[in-house]
């Protein structure tokens, strides 16, 4: 099938939302470096942050091949309203209960999205999805281990984790905010769409949370927190970007 302008716009939008999510969450994950509750967790979040930022680079490279600016320019010179990341990833790291729940919600979405994209007709994206698959596996395994373990822990652990699940769930639903191009992406075989992804994710998350001993939040009564995909963000994103780009901004033309 020949791609129209709308197909290309839809593909770029998809790539931006994925890459921006990974870059911002990668940055947030890196904030645990030096602060992790135990050494191994410090290492775990640092390692996963590195993976995510590397994955964002691979996606920005594809965008560059499609005519967007160089990855460094895209990553370090845009302002908050130009980012297509969801609100979930820009929230501060908070306590470990929130960060673990965000990690669990986001990484399963990422793994499922990537799985869908291993069949995309867009070759460079298909190759990259097949590569990411093996890397993300370690992320979801880690998230599952911790969610499972904490449910078997103290009363405080169970209460705090359940609370974090309840409070984070509306933000998590924002990962699946529809784009203007859902029909185009689906018809062209580029991507199966946010609705299908959300449905699969809900099924996976629900089964896991129930197996671990948590209560799955009620999708019917939860208002998703949207806006990120359209460039409308919380007050947390711009300060994050200011900090992330601080060194780059000293001399944007420097060779590092």
């Amino acid at each position, binding site marked *: 099938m020949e791609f129209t302008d709308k197909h290309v716009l839809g593909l770029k939008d998809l790539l931006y939302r994925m890459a921006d999510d990974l870059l911002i969450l990668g940055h947030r994950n890196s904030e645990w470096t030096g602060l992790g509750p135990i050494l191994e967790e410090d290492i775990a979040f640092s390692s996963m942050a590195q993976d995510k930022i590397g994955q964002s680079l691979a996606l920005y490279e594809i965008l560059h091949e499609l005519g967007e600016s160089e990855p460094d320019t895209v990553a370090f010179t845009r302002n908050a309203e130009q980012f297509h990341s969801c609100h979930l990833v820009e929230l501060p790291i908070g306590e470990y209960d929130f960060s673990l729940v965000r990690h669990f919600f986001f990484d399963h979405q990422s793994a499922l999205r990537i799985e869908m994209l291993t069949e995309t007709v867009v070759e460079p994206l298909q190759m990259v999805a097949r*590569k990411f698959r093996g890397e993300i596996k370690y992320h979801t395994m880690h998230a599952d281990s911790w969610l499972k373990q904490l449910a078997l822990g103290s009363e405080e652990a169970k209460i705090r984790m359940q609370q974090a699940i309840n409070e984070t769930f509306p933000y998590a639903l924002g990962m699946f905010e529809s784009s203007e191009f859902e029909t185009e992406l689906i018809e062209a075989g580029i991507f199966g769409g946010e609705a299908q992804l959300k449905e699969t994710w809900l099924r996976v998350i629900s089964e896991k949370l129930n197996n671990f001993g948590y209560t799955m939040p009620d999708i019917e009564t939860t208002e998703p927190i949207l806006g990120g995909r359209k460039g409308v963000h919380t007050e947390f994103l711009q300060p994050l970007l200011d900090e992330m780009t601080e060194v780059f901004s000293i001399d944007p033309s420097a060779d590092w």
Partner: protein
Amino acid sequence: MDPEIPTISIVDLGIVTKIASESPEKAFVQLTPTFSGCPALKIMEQLVKDALLEAGYQQITVETSFETQWNTNMISEKGRAALLQHGLAPPPKHDGYFELDVLSDIECPLCSSRNTTLHTPFGPTLCRSMHYCKNCSNAFEAFKPVS
């Protein structure tokens, strides 16, 4: 060679995926990233270019591509031996699907015992996991399996 593990060549790691030389001055080499976030990618590209220049090529192209997706099965037997020589347990072979339990009895690179435990699947670099040998009481690192 791999900038972080000097005993091993990137050919033995499975990083070099294509080589072509259409004429005596031309050289084309394609590399594939081990991990998307590997910080040594750019350095390796440069090292390859340098090596080709030294070998006398003048028209050199080195590209990094995901055309072949890297996984740990692509490490050669020679590569596995080099990892061991460096003190790293080589990754278990896999058929594309595995769970964390394949990491629970990795052979100790120091005493070869399988009486080992997984300490964490993450490590000081993206490719490493951390283990403990109950036989010789040493901590050690492994090159973790990636599909």
